[in-house]
């Protein structure tokens, strides 16, 4: 379990990047917390810097979009999904569990 930040420090509509390898982006969207791989599958850009609209995040570089719930790429130029990671909150602290390489969204 990787500590992210306090829930109070991640207001709705905000996102934060954690420097795991590879980095993970955590979003507070639509009343839920979501964690996905931070790096766009098209080119090197941080999705934590992206534009959040509902449960979709748009890459800040080329406007590729990903569904936070599934990691699926929903708009070109990205075609490959990002991985999703389980998020939990304990005692007001957000934690992410780094998903294994296997068994995640392809």
């Amino acid at each position, binding site marked *: 379990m990787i500590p992210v930040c306090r829930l109070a420090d991640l207001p709705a509509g905000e996102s934060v990047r954690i420097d795991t390898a590879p980095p993970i982006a955590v979003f507070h969207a639509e009343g839920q917390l979501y964690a996905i791989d931070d790096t766009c599958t098209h080119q090197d850009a941080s999705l934590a810097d992206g534009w959040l609209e509902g449960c979709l995040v748009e890459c*800040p570089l*080329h406007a590729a979009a990903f569904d936070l719930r599934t990691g699926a790429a929903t708009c*070109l130029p990205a075609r490959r999904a990002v991985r999703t990671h389980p998020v939990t909150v304990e005692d007001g602290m957000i934690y992410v569990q780094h998903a294994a390489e296997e068994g995640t969204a392809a």
Partner: protein
Amino acid sequence: MKSVAVIGASLAGLYAARALRAEGFDGRLVIVGDEHHGPYDRPPLSKGLLTGATGPDQLALADAEEIAELDAEWLLGTEATGLDTGGRAVLLDGGRRLTTDGVVLATGAAPLRLPGPAPAGAHTLRTLDDAQALRADLTRGPVRVVVIGGGFIGAEVASSCAALGHHVTVVEAAPLPLVPQLGDAMAGVCAALHADHGVTLRTGTGVARLHGEGSGGRVSGVELADGRLLPAEVVVTGIGVRPRTAWLAGSGLPLDDGVRCDAGCATPLPQVVAVGDVARVDGTRAEHWTSATEQAATAAHNLLAGRTARTHRGVPYFWSDQYGVRIQFAGRRLPGDTPRVLEGSPDDRSFLACYERDGHPTAVLALNRPRPFMRLRRTLARAAQPATT
């Protein structure tokens, strides 16, 4: 419309083909490309591909599944040589004729070259083959590299070469590079990135000629207009591009720094549209990745509608990665628009600046500030209000 030929198999051509299928076109779709490669992404050619961070196999713009779904005939390694508008055909090299109802012109642009023959070691950079040839010259130990042209391509190549440990000099004919794009103040900030990373920038001096080791030998240096000689084992020329319209001479299309078309990418010839670097849309020829993709959707829609049913007035956007700094720009800046730094500091190479005219924002520039940049870019786009009829 039973058949469409897309001439050009790069970003704009591929996106036009995708858009045609997405709009329901189920007729014959032929994509003609003069390179032997399928569609690939060009921006990494001056960055990751040169440094080795990105492999050629990572550049494909479409995977096998999508290529199959497009259900197109691909004529790669094939050059279009003319447009027979009376016979509704595209002429191909080897004397072939491709009869078609609709045509999408997406032949892009070709790099400008210095006059005279190019000796070995002298490069331009546009295609994957160009990039691989340049990389081969950069992976045999440290060399002296002279980059001619301090624009974005030149600066990115210089950055990649410096990252590989080469000794790099950038030569720019103007007093300061990127002034037409960014204005004096911000161009000065970007120019300073070279010195930050040990790269020499020589401005205000044109190039007289390249020196080679005997006739047919490798390049040995760059002679500047002031007579000074810069020794170099590798030279990269990045002095701009010219739209590839020569093959359209005599077609009846208005050719004037690109194929002239209206705001819907429609040319004066019926059922002929133009997209990407080759298209001068509503008076402007953008050489931007995003413009190419946006124009493709507009052009495909209008080609199938048989008229300009949709126009696009997106906010021009481009980005550049150099020396670990991400530069992003969006908007229509006119000379005299004054930049105001909204956050960060140019001295830290991390800031957001807004260009203003009469108190109104016209463009936004960011170095390493992608998040607030995106917000301001969206604000500009909303203000531009794309037209739909």
